[in-house]
């Protein structure tokens, strides 16, 4: 019985979410929402099957690999950046404003610069995705490392640690929960980033396909691509959660007994 109970408890949220779909359909029919404003799920489904699976997969893969690679790059850049800023007050005061500036610059506005700098292949898309995702990572890693309790810092300093080791062995592990909170934000931003990048420079990918469909007034097809994007985001988000659960069990709140 308890295991049945648990199954139900697990399934309930999924079922609730799925039940939104008929509701959506109903609303669209009831209020006669025009397709170009919000297509009904049935329209979307129809549009979905009209495109061959291979093309879906092609676009999906194009977006996914940019999102993943861009996320990986920004992770690889932002952690060292955060470390630098934690170690040096001067760097933190010099770099932080720069990062804020970069973060708040609308990428689309500097598209020419990016294309001239990175060409028109993969590179500009990766650059854009990384630019859009890195900030939450830097902020959360920095906040986490700075929030390390004084007593742990004293422990580490009493061991005559080099500052590098202090960061590596004490501050970074302590920042894990913060960092993962940043990663959850960043990973969904990575999808946004890949899509924006495809708006700016690409001939494939779900974002390209959305824009393409919209400019041809194939709104249900655009929404099918959007749903696909959502599924990818959910998968990436779950992926990050899973990673935390697997590698850093301790950083999660323990289940109540």
């Amino acid at each position: 019985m308890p295991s049945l109970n648990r199954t139900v408890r697990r399934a309930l949220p999924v079922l609730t979410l799925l039940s939104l779909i008929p509701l959506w359909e109903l609303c669209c029919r009831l209020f006669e929402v025009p397709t170009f404003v919000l297509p009904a799920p049935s329209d979307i489904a129809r549009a979905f099957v009209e495109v061959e699976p291979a093309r879906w997969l092609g676009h999906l893969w194009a977006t996914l690999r940019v999102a993943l690679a861009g996320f990986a790059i920004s992770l690889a850049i932002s952690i060292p950046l955060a470390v630098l800023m934690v170690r040096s007050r001067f760097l933190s005061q010099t770099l932080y404003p720069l990062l804020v500036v970069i973060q708040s610059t609308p990428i689309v506005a500097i598209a020419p610069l990016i294309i001239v700098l990175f060409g028109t292949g993969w590179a500009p898309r990766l650059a854009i995705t990384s630019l859009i995702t890195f900030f939450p990572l830097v902020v959360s890693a920095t906040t986490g490392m700075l929030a390390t309790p004084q007593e742990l810092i004293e422990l580490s300093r009493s061991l005559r640690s080099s500052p590098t080791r202090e960061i590596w062995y004490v501050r970074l592990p302590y920042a894990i929960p913060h960092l993962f909170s940043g990663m959850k934000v960043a990973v969904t931003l990575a999808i946004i980033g890949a899509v924006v990048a495809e708006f700016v420079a690409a001939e494939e990918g779900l974002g390209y396909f959305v824009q393409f469909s919209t400019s041809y007034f194939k709104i249900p097809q655009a929404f099918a691509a959007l749903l696909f994007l959502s599924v990818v985001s959910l998968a990436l988000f779950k992926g990050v959660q899973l990673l935390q659960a697997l590698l850093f069990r301790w950083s999660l709140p323990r289940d109540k007994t």
Partner: protein
Amino acid sequence: ADKVNFQLDWMPGGDKAPVYVGVQQGFFAAEGLEVKIAQGRGSTDSLTRLATGISDIGLSDISALLAARARDDVGVSAVMSVFSQAPHAFFTLSDSGVDTVAKVAGKRIATSAFTSSNVFLPLLLEVNHLDENDIRLIKADVGALGPMLITGNADLVISWVTDREKYQAQASEMGRTISMLPWYQAGMDIYATSLVASDRFLQQRPEVARRFMRAYLKAIAYTWAEPERAGAMVEAMVPEVDAGVATATILTMRDLVFNDASARLGLGALDPARLAETWRWVARAQDLDESAFDPETAVAREIMAGVVPAQPVKEEVTP
């Protein structure tokens, strides 16, 4: 006065001058209209806003309208042609040696990813006995096209005739000159930007629509009669616009408005045969069933009657 919400299909500029002229010169006021201008972000956006009743009448490429109506019975109809030639064009550096469309074979052509030009490109190439494999298409952000052309990342770019001044300005900075190959000179003979209106507006206030169209025609005539003044009027209402640039644009695009077609069929007219030709291009370009849709259903002839001059009116739609 009757209030009319006018929908632009893009940002203000010389190519949108008539509506500003209409306001500034009092053409609308003379018809008892109070016009409010809303900016848009492309034909699709403009159509959506008209279809949802946010605006009453506005500009959109008629090919977007035809495709939208064929796909999705959108409640918007065309009431007047504005550009009776399509504005698509190749741009290249003057010394590139490409002076006819036939010579684009083997070149690198940069284009914006989502412009409607791309859809027509294969057809244009076909008309010129080329196909897509003869060129290398590079897609990039609109803003990057000029830089790509000038820095040699691309041999040609696809853009609109109305952008000529802007590309020339960029090229001048590097001491180069630009030449333009308009597609309408290479076999693409179809309608483009048109005045379109929501069906609800046309049904509920047909007279208002007619008055608007009358004033708009006057404004078009004035704009190309007095390009400098027209440019200044745009700037007067939208300070971001530079009057000089607007004037230059107005001059550049004269051929889109006043051309063989407009001379033959009348300014503003939507000739059924040419409209059918336009639809043929659209259907082929977008892979739509040509016979499944009658382009005439996208035109509100009864509204146009008596407003648009020299219009070859079909028998059955006389009021």
